[in-house]
């Protein structure tokens, strides 16, 4: 079996969870991967200081799409405060595959856009190298 393109990665890529628009929403952001121009946006609905629901939209490679899709399941219900503290390791571990230095940005794009929407800070998540 392929190291990177595991079954669950391809599954999340082909059938991404929580993708689409979410209207109305309370927070949103849109980011590019400067490497390839891939675009990923997010809509977030907030309730009691937590992410009640969220949807990603945009396009990207298997790594960035799967990473956003997998993260979306974890992010639902998470306290906004906690979102602000998520770092690169969190996203990489969640993804569960070895990611090369070049493709780290693909794997982190989803987290970047969510943190951008929630905290307004759209720098790359700490530890992106």
């Amino acid at each position: 079996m392929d190291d990177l393109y595991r079954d669950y990665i391809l599954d999340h890529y082909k059938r991404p969870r929580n993708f689409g628009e979410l209207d109305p929403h309370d927070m949103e952001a849109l980011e590019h991967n400067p490497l390839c121009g891939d675009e990923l946006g997010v809509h977030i609905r907030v309730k009691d200081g937590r992410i009640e629901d969220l949807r990603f939209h945009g396009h990207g490679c298997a790594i960035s799409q799967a990473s956003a899709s997998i993260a979306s399941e974890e992010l639902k219900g998470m306290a906004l405060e906690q979102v602000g503290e998520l770092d690169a390791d969190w996203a990489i571990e969640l993804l569960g595959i070895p990611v090369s230095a070049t493709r780290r940005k693909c794997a982190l794009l989803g987290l970047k856009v969510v943190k951008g929407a929630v905290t307004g800070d759209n720098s790359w998540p700490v530890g992106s190298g």
Partner: protein
Amino acid sequence: MKTAESERTTAVSTLDVRDDFPILSRHIDGRPLVYLDSGATSQKPAAVIDAISDYLSEHNANVHRGVYALAQESDAAYESARERIAAFVGWEPRTTIFTKNVTEAINLVAYAWGRTNVGPGDAVLTTQMEHHANIVPWQVLCRERGAELRYLEVDERGELSLDQLDRELARGDVKLVTFTHVSNVLGTILPVAEMTARVRAAGATSLVDGAQAVPHMPVNTAALGADFYAWTGHKALGPTGIGVLHGRTEILEQMEPFLTGGDMIASVDFDGATWNELPFKFEAGTPPIAEAVGLGAAVDYLSALGMERVRAHERKLTGYLLDRLREVPGLRVVGPPEAENRGGLASFTIEGMHAHDIAELANRGGVCIRAGHHCAQPLMRRLGVAATARASVGVYNEPVDVDALIDALLAGRRVFEL
């Protein structure tokens, strides 16, 4: 016993120069390296690597100022490189300026020519198929000077319309027309001489980005008729750190300098400075000496191969590449359909696979191709794609490299369960 495939590949010529390129004996995960990313940067023959080492180990000194033997050797090496590099593309050494890459060469024109010659109400005309290096400097210039940046459109075949060029020029506000010689995404070879003739007739100035042309086909800049012609060393078998700008004497002489400092002055006092003669006026500070020596060796190498042969080889190889890519289900090539009208590259998409994943999976087969927007985001938007994968050839590629690519793409589709 010959398979159908090997019969077909032997029908395509090779220049048989692989052994000149040390890197090509590398293996990636046990598979021989297949380099199909010359559009991004070329590999270097031993002749170039050795020329650099030899210069640094035997002759190294700063140029233009020393009277001792090493300094004279360095001067001679640097200026002889300039002469050979200029001659390689049919231009004069005195108006051949070394920059750090083609991006700096274009910026030089944008700053030093553009800021005095483009003003409010004027227009700069570029094309939708340019590399960012030939778009962003003009966006910046036009914003600063209150001018307008307009784009020649790319049609379905990946070509421009000369009629649109005529119409744009007829508006009477165009000061500069700047365009690529060969598109780094579509492969399209533009009709440079026809375009510069029209630009000249309209009284405008022309700049051609030759980054993807000079390494791959005979280029006679004098015959092409551009006012400025720029290219970059690292794509032409030379090292990083050097670009080339050819310009017309009258224009260069009237321009103010760009970067200022040592070597580009005639004299400096506390109140001001006067400028050195061409080409030094545009070469501030210690120039890329070892890099010029390396690029000099690169053009010698290419001249010895013969650029007509290089072009013939790459055209055939590109034809073979286009043919074989058609075998991959779901694959779509962008740009001109025939190899005749394109440089040695093909950009493509595969239904159901992102370009990044295509490149990643090609690497599993030891095949190096590029994926992304290729520094041409506006073109990507025009084509309606997010990214493409691109295979591009050089003198050292052979049909087996194309075969390896196709095998890797087919294997990649299986990984993606397509």
